[in-house]
């Protein structure tokens, strides 16, 4: 069943379940409730009407109803563990509602698809979902534990399968189980959670079970008002709004919150309908009988009291005062980021804002860019400390129940961050042919003593260095002592002499040639001679070091094309000559980005080159690109040991299963992530660029919120390089901009591509005087700096600032003799921005904007 569920479950259902699970683990956030809920709460029934999003439309309603009914049982069973905390804290009404919702959710999605009935009916969808999760939990707990990630997958998918299962309770439970894996995991983790939270502990279990049972009852009893009241009581008992709240979503997306609300509405209606039908059909007693927990009694009395509140769909409880009531003027607000619910008065929100409302935590987080609960906790005022602690605790409970979770996470972060920051090699993907070829060549040199030369050609970032280094690494595993590696870089060794010395040094170091030998070869010719001696077979030069040349040498020449620019290409000539003439077993591997590099070789050099090439290409398709990028986000099974991850640590498999599931989920389900990936694929295909964007999100993960979110929210700091110089325009003052525009205008007006300060200032002041005349004639008194004409001195400073920022580039002939002297006025400059670029890059005031437009 589990697989079915995962695939089939409607996205909404998946989400809700996830939420419910999360809620079960007492989350601080109190779950979903967002604005939408607030609105809902006021008119209780109205919500049904609001549901809208097309889900109701389709498929089999009956099945849904059935399924919903069945589900509760299973969920109830499952949930008991997580709930205890919430139940103890909060009134039962909300919980009961939630439970009903929980049931409905999986069902509701299906319902929506299948039947109109579903759409119309009851409000308390959230509760339903919670119920489901609760019910399902006990039965399926074991299963759930196994597969935490499945839920995520579900989210994205179309609803429907769960409902069909409905008639058979057990089956449904199974189905739910995979979906609710988290819940189950939570159950398992209960103990751990209990340890963490002093609250949870012993009493919790019993409470939770009770609450679950009550929830089961509720759906059946719904039609009669008394029943409903019972429901309400139950809800309260269960407390945690959390059922509905999408814990995971919090971590993953800002946006989903709204959707949840919508879904909730629909679901509610669905659930109501279902509950009506089903509950009629199914006697309350049955359910009660099944779940014999003692709490039922308690629920009933409470329910009466709460009848009024029942109508309100939301079971959310204020985080501060733990009361669920939401009245006009003191409504419950839900944070649009973390779903924390608070009363207006409790949280000090005078007016309900129009747009999104974020709790203080989330606001801070947004500001800080990095999500770290700890920081916020520190900075926060004492009044909210409790809340936070509670929140943290809830979050922790939502986490997958994996032993040593924090340790696993930290280790994973270490490895992944090292990879993303480029300090650990990532494996080559899809370059097998190139790898084989290179490997073969190097091995031939080492094993058979051949001289070889080869060029590795490919764009930047396609893995040339990675290729060569991994070849060398692999080869060295077999032939450790049999070869030396000399690495040269065209940027660093800028002429042959330096390169030779470097070769000599590296070889001397590796071969342990005496220092005085290295030191005494002070001039180029000597160095060359000794090097040749060193490299040549002993038979050719008798006096040189015997035995030394029996080792082969691999020359790795980075930026090979730059070596071709050295005078007479002496070094290349000699290296290739040695390789070709088999004087010594050396392999010359050149790395370059230039495909025409051979053309730049001299004839004599070219003729000694073996003309072996390896071409590397950037990933050709998005999946291929993702294959490479994925290594920055997850670690393959076989690499664990190599990366130094302790596989023996308890929970290792669970953790990586969970983690890889999440990463896959990002790629498969998260549209934002996919867009992000695609944008890099489309623009640069640069793996390292993409991985760099992952650094900060990865570094921001905490054991309490280990949910990767890429790309980071827009408020966070970006590590992308600037597109152009235009980003600097924002930091310019009005005068700077005026001069820049004046100069840019001259480009067009006077048809000159160079300007000096005198010209620009002249244009500026004439524009200004025109502007003044206009404003004067139109009778407008211009206030402030708008038409203020700045003097030549200040303008000169502004001009110099433009120069310093590189927006003005000295035109070729500044006149050397006069360079430092005169002349700010007459020195000619070229403008690095065009007139039409300016308004696009920065927000101009009206006057400046007109100058850009009217020529």
């Amino acid at each position, binding site marked *: 069943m589990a697989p079915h569920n995962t695939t089939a479950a409607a996205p909404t259902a998946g989400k809700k379940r996830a939420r419910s699970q999360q809620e079960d683990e007492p989350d601080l956030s109190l779950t979903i409730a967002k604005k939408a809920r607030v609105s809902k709460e006021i008119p209780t029934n109205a919500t049904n009407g609001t549901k809208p999003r097309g889900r109701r439309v389709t498929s089999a309603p009956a099945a849904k109803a059935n399924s919903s009914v069945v589900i509760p049982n299973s969920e109830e069973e499952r949930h008991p563990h997580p709930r205890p905390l919430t139940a103890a804290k909060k009134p039962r009404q909300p919980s009961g509602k939630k439970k009903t919702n929980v049931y409905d959710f999986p069902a509701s999605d299906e319902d929506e698809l299948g039947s109109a009935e579903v759409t119309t009916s009851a409000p308390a969808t959230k509760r339903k979902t919670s119920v489901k999760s609760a019910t399902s939990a006990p039965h399926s707990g074991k299963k759930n534990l196994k597969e935490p990630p499945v839920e995520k997958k579900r989210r994205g998918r179309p609803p429907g399968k769960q409902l069909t299962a409905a008639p058979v309770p057990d089956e449904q439970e199974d189905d739910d189980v995979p979906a609710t894996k988290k819940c189950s995991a939570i159950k398992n983790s209960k103990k751990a959670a209990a340890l963490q939270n002093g609250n949870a502990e012993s009493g919790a279990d019993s409470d939770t079970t009770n609450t679950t049972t009550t929830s089961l009852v509720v759906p059946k009893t719904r039609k009669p008002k008394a029943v409903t009241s019972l429901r309400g009581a139950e809800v309260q008992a269960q407390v945690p709004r959390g059922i509905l709240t999408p814990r995971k979503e919090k971590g993953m997306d800002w946006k989903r919150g709204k959707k949840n609300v919508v879904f909730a509405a629909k679901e509610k209606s669905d659930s109501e309908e279902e509950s009506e039908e089903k509950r009629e059909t199914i006697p309350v007693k049955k359910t009660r009988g099944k779940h014999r927990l003692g709490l039922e009694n308690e629920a009933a009395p409470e329910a009466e009291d709460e009848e009024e509140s029942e109508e309100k769909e939301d079971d959310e409880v204020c985080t501060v005062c733990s009361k669920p009531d939401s009245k006009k003027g003191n409504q419950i607000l839900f944070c649009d980021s973390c779903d924390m619910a608070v009363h207006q008065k409790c949280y000090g929100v005078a007016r309900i804002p129009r747009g999104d409302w974020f709790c203080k935590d989330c606001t801070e987080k947004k*500001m800080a860019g990095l999500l770290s609960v700890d920081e916020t906790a520190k900075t926060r005022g004492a009044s909210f400390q409790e809340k936070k602690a509670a929140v943290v605790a809830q979050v922790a409970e939502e986490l997958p129940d994996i032993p040593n979770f924090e340790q696993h996470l930290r280790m994973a972060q270490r490895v992944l961050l090292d990879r993303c920051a480029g300090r650990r090699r990532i494996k080559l993907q899809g370059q097998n042919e190139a790898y084989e070829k290179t490997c073969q060549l190097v091995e031939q040199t080492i094993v058979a003593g051949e001289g070889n030369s080869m060029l590795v050609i490919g764009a930047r970032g396609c893995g040339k260095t990675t290729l060569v280094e991994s070849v060398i690494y692999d080869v060295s595993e077999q032939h450790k002592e049999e070869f030396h590696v000399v690495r040269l870089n065209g*940027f660093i060794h800028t002429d042959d002499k330096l390169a030779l010395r470097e070769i000599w040094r590296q070889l001397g170091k590796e071969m342990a040639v005496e220092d005085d030998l290295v030191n005494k070869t002070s001039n180029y010719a000597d160095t060359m001679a000794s090097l040749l001696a060193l490299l040549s077979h002993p038979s050719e030069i008798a006096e040189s070091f015997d035995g030394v040349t029996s080792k082969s040498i691999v020359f790795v020449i980075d930026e090979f094309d730059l070596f071709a620019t050295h005078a007479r290409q002496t070094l290349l000539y000699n290296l290739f000559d040695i390789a070709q003439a088999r004087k010594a077993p050396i392999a010359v591997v050149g790395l370059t980005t230039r495909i025409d590099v051979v053309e730049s070789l001299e004839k004599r050099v070219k003729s000694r080159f073996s003309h072996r090439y390896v071409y590397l290409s950037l990933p050709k398709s998005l999946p291929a690109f993702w294959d490479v990028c994925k290594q920055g986000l997850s670690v393959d099974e076989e690499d664990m040991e190599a990366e130094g991850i302790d596989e023996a640590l308890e929970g290792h498999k669970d953790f990586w299963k969970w983690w890889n599931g999440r990463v896959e989920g990002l790629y498969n389900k998260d549209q934002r992530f996919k867009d992000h990936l695609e944008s890099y694929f489309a623009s640069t295909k640069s793996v390292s660029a993409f991985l760099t964007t992952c650094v900060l999100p990865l570094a921001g993960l905490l054991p309490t919120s280990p949910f990767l979110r890429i790309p980071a929210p827009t408020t966070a700091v970006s590590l992308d390089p600037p597109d152009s110089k235009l980003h600097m325009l924002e930091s310019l003052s009005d005068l700077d901009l005026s001069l820049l525009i004046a100069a840019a205008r001259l480009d067009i007006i006077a048809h000159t591509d160079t300007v000096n300060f005198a010209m620009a200032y002249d244009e500026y002041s004439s524009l200004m005087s025109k502007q003044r005349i206009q404003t004067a004639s139109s009778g407008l008194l211009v206030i402030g700096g708008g038409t203020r004409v700045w003097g030549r001195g200040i303008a000169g400073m502004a001009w110099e600032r433009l120069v310093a920022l*590189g927006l003005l580039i000295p035109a070729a002939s500044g006149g050397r003799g*006069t360079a430092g002297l*005169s*002349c700010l006025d007459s020195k000619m400059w070229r403008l690095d921005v065009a007139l039409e670029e300016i308004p696009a890059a920065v927000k101009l005031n009206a006057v400046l904007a007109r100058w850009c437009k009217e020529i």
Partner: protein
Amino acid sequence: MAVSIFELPDELRLTLIAKEFPCREPQIRALATLLNPSAAPCQNLVVYGTEATGKTAITAALLASLDGDLLRHTIVNSIECITARHLYETVVARVAAALEWDAVPPRCESVSQLTVELSKMLKYTERPEGFRFVLVFDGIDHQREAPHTLLPALARLSEIIPSLTTVFVVTSPPPNNLLTTFVPHLHFPTYTKPEFISILSLSPPPPIPNTTPQETLDLYTRFVAAVHDSLSRSASRTLPSLSQACQTLWPKFILPITARTHTAKEFSKLVVLARVHFQDESLLDPTLSLAPSVTTIPLSTKPKTTDLATLLPTTARFLLLAAYLASHNPTKTDLALFSTFHHGRKRRRGGFSGITGVSGGRGGRKNGNQHRKIARKLLGAHAFVLERMLAIFTAVRTEWDPASQGKIRDGMVGGEQEMDNDIYMSIATLASLRLLVKVGGGGDVCDLGGKWRVAVGWEVVRGLGRSVGVEVEEWLVE
């Protein structure tokens, strides 16, 4: 391989630094993550932003607080290094100092050698696990005499030495200037107005007598906002200039309060009273306003008009004017302008466009619908032959200086006459003052064939001309 565990940098330190540098918390956090050895240290990092945005200060403060067994750092300021070689040697010396390394090599001539030296200190020496060295190149984009491979080469250092992190602090990085795959770039944007205000109000001035500190702070906040709008946003948008302007203006601004004519609450009235000061340009131009000491000898190339006019002797003034005319008039018009064959002076076709009235006749005129022609004087000075300048001088001096007329009629421009005795002396003086510049070195000052160029601007010359009663405009061919 021992597994090091990921850790975020210490919260307390970050908070301290964030307090020290307000409004920069995201950058500080990102920087801390990217530099801390136990977080996510990167190989290369580019920190960029315009001036006075806290790039260097924050980087330095953060590194100083992270410094310890696992992290050492040094900052090399390119502006202090005259040549690339100087830079290399500074780097080696600083790194050695930071690592308490004894054997500092005497020379370091190339990147190659730099690499070797750094490798010795960082790569071949045993360091604790997870050790990182952060090498900060401050203002590397302004390095003088830098070979074009300097930046890519420095970016390769961290490839060769795994435990090295290089940070480049630059103003505006050209795309892919490191020629490497990808480097994280951290942007320090300019402060916005609210940020300016909040930063400056962190250090309010001492309370005004007879007001409460709170009132003073409120007033100061609004005052800063007003200064920002009137001066900073419109002309000089940097934190130092704003804070300097505020410091200068504040005493003047609160004058009415100390005089008890107004209270601290009447902000708008105070602004009206201080409006004159708000419009004072000299606030932003410290060289002119804050150091008003009169220089006896104008050393700068652009001395104030009044200075030149009063300081130069008359002959030198005339010579300078003649030089200006020689620089700005085409040679072919000389005959028409300066010929004295026909009695009196020929009417010069003073080529001023229709808008002569506007501040000295600047502003181009339009040639039909075509591109506007740029006033010649705006294009700067052209070189002239010394002989021509002397000819012009001789031609116009009778007109400019009637007093000399008689003497000239007597004979050549000669030694003993008061105005003539020192022509070459004046030229030499002007040259030493850099008001006249010899083009293309070599040659004697007296070489009549030598080429010169005038190094003073139009404004100066106009003032100078007026000081001797000459309207230079009349002598210019436009």
